[in-house]
């Protein structure tokens, strides 16, 4: 029997707001001492009440728009109770009943549409580090704002699971709501996988693999689960509904806790935070100047940029935005993909891109054949170099002596000089006798004479004219 996998994904996105979701403490704890970004509200001193970070609400509106979601005009918070030292209040403040982001969808590069069930705001938990006989608690991460994005079970392959997660990562960065640093847990994925016989309308029993932090591990975990569950079903046994953990090292998932012992979170409306009511004007204000999303770029540049190149470039919202500003998209997209991203310092360069004007000048010089393709690449890279930046493409090209000689009169003189040289006589004869390929040698000689500044295709044309006369 053939089994069809069905996959639903929950994705937690840490928002890059200045302060935490419910207190005025610095939200960016990168490189800071444990428990140094913690206020009495965060460590749950008695009598402390949550405040609400307006920036997080704004970010949620943008994140929702990025996923083509309904923004709910009225939403509110709830308490989700559990005892663990990573949760100082004994509950997490989340949105269980009335989330801020409603239904929407995400388009994968393949064109497949994955529906979003909803997305909600909540506070993150603290971090525990376990040792042999004790554990250390770091509350820096407590109540960092999160958006949890819940998909519909619309995904049916490991590849689509991978692509969906990656597309979410792109969308959240395009919307400007997260640093998107996967290594540091800015985005984490919980993946539900179930298998059902082909043609069956009922979904199978699902297993949930929690806390995946890379697209690759999402893909591998789904692949593993499909294999594992297929084996179970083929043996005539039943899949247990449970939470499983993933190990990158072993490439396997292992059971953690089954649904029977699942916790009862005793959800309750959060009485300390009044409902959030958003006006149409507020939402509009947040969405003015909303940037183009990957799907918009695919539509806009699909004909101009090769599919593979486009998908590579789409990982870099800043490059796509720049491409949208420049005139020669085809040339620039190639330079971005094959030159800039291949460069060792590309990460640093991405922080401060050259102006569209500089890039346009470069493209114009290339089109006018003032720069060879090699010279174009060289000048292009210098435009990113902090030392050279701002001088402009033309000045840089001049300084480096890279401008090609396109003046036909001047080129003719060089060609004549080369043809007058005795060492080229034999090649000239050979060409006249039909040996086409020696033209390359002659072009080379002219280039050498011009110190590389001659435009080789122009040189070839002049040579042909002179030798066939």
């Amino acid at each position, binding site marked *: 029997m053939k089994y069809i996998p069905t996959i639903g994904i929950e994705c937690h996105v840490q928002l890059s707001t200045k302060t935490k979701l419910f207190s005025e403490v610095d939200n960016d704890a990168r490189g800071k001492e444990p428990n140094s970004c913690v206020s*009495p509200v965060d*460590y*749950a*001193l*008695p*009598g*402390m*009440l*949550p*405040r*609400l970070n307006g920036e997080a609400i704004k970010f949620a509106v943008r994140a929702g728009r990025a996923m083509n979601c309904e923004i709910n005009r009225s939403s509110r918070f709830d*308490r989700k*109770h559990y*005892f663990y*030292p990573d949760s*100082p*209040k*004994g*509950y997490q403040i989340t949105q269980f009943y009335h989330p801020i982001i409603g239904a929407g969808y995400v388009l994968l590069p393949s064109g497949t549409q994955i529906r979003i069930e909803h997305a909600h705001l909540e506070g993150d938990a603290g971090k525990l580090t376990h040792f042999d006989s004790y554990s250390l*608690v770091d509350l820096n991460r407590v109540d960092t704002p999160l958006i949890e994005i819940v998909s519909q079970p619309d995904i049916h392959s490991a590849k689509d699971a991978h692509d969906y997660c990656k597309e979410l990562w792109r969308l959240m960065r395009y919307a400007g709501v997260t640093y998107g640093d996967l290594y540091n847990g800015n985005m984490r994925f919980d993946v539900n996988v179930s298998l059902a016989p082909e043609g069956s309308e009922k979904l199978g029993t699902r297993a949930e693999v929690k806390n995946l932090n890379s697209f690759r591990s999402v893909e591998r975990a789904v692949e593993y689960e499909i294999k594992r569950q297929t084996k179970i079903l083929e043996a005539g046994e039943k899949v247990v509904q449970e939470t499983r953990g993933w190990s990158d090292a072993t490439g396997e998932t292992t059971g953690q806790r089954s649904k029977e012992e699942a916790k*009862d*979170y*005793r*959800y*309750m*409306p959060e*009485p*300390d*935070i*009044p409902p959030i009511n958003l006006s149409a004007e507020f939402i509009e204000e947040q969405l003015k100047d909303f940037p183009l999303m990957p799907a918009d770029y695919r539509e806009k540049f699909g004909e101009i940029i090769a599919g593979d190149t486009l998908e590579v470039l789409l990982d870099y919202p800043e490059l796509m935005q720049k491409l949208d500003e420049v005139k020669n998209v085809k040339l620039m997209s190639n330079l971005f993909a094959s030159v800039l991203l291949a460069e060792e310092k590309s990460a640093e360069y991405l922080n401060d891109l050259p102006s569209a004007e500089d890039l346009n000048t470069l493209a114009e010089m290339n089109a006018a054949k003032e720069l060879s393709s090699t010279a174009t690449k060289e000048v292009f890279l210098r435009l990113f170099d902090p030392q050279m930046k701002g001088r402009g493409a033309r000045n840089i090209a001049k300084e480096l002596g890279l401008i090609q000689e396109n003046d036909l009169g001047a080129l003719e003189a060089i060609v004549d000089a080369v043809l007058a040289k005795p060492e080229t006589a034999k090649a000239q004869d050979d060409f006249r006798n039909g040996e086409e390929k020696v033209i390359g040698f002659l072009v080379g000689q002219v280039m050498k004479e011009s110190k590389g500044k001659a435009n080789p295709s122009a040189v070839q044309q002049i040579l042909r004219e002179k030798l066939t006369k």
Partner: protein
Amino acid sequence: MRIASKEVSAVSLVKEALRKAHEFEDYHVFISMNEEAALAQAAEIDAKIARGEKVGRLAGVPFALKDNYLSPDGETTAGAHMLQGLTSPITATVVEKLKAEGAIAIGRTNMDAFAHGSSTENSYFGPTLNSADRERVAGGSSGGSAVAVALGIVEFATGSDTGGSIRQPASFNGIYGLKPTYGATSRYGVVAMASSTDCMGFFTKTPEDMDLLMSITAGQDPKDLTTLPDYYNSSEVKKVKRVGIIKDFDNEVVDADIRKALKEKCELLESKGYEIVKIEMPTLKYALAVYYIIQPAEVASNLSRYDGVRYGFRSKDSKDLDGLYENTRDEGFMPENKRRIMIGNFVLSSGFYDAYFLKAAKARTLIIKEYEKAFSECDFILTPVSPNPAFRLGEKVDDPVAMYLEDLMSVSLNLAGVPGLAIPAGKNAAGLPIGLQLVGPRRSDKSLIEFSKELAK
């Protein structure tokens, strides 16, 4: 104020308050005293006055803090073993506003642990005695604060009212006690009981003092999202014509002397030209049931932070994390705390939420609407605070339902968010104080206090 005019010094006022506190020590009013700091603050105020500097509206006035108000002076225990050893780094907004006007906290008053109770007998530190009869309870949960004012130790005291915790002890001790409109005063820095019904208010001997305290402490607090913009200081005193009497609260369930007091006050009002109207509020009979679902649910939630990990009491010698939680919460909470945690978690548990919590939340909306309707028929409502005057110590300790019935007439106000002012209404034959409460629509606190003067004469 007498102090600013140099009639008396702040230091002598504070010394007098401290002297009385010691004199009445066996009433067990205070959990902890703040003597040195209080005297130092008083000396500072006297020095300011001597230099001719401006001082606040409460300069040098000694007061008592219910022990669930956080401030860095001394420990805040909320009457609970669980919080012993907790010194707060922050100050509650209400306390900050009082201190900014020069008021001086001389000590922290006794209360039922985490404000769970109606007699102060649930305090980890033992009960407070009634100011009129030492065999009887002070009422609760703010028993210590009520007795501190009734005995004249301090001019005023802070309280918190979640389901009657200010009004009932005020009536048991013959003084004024205000539960303001929900959100009128900030909850920031007060150990939370039930967040959606907790109100911060005061005990005083006069309506004038109550008005002054409210004008100082009312207003929006960015640290408490449920506070209202200051309406108190901009509200006009409304012209009262009709006062409502609730039929269901005037029957044999209520003590005869209290009914008599209610009748006398109605006659007084009529003699002054006010109209007394009988109103029906049939939904109020469900208020106690609704309250004992919503309040324990919020209590269970708010008490989940006490796990022995970060502050307060921690049980020793636990083998693992679950053991630490279990032992700490077992030893740190009083039986009444545990009872409410269990009820609360039950009504919130999956499968029961719709039948209990959600249904109670809907009934709460009906109660709110019923109050709105009532206030279309009358300006204020006059009712007893509790069915009986102060009961004997130990009388109801083993009967939680009898204890909960104490809240019968007070909890609906908390569910509806409307203000209620307990006013003294004489004494019964045994000399026990009798209290009545004036109830008004939301934001009518100022008019309510003003109108209570009509009932005093």
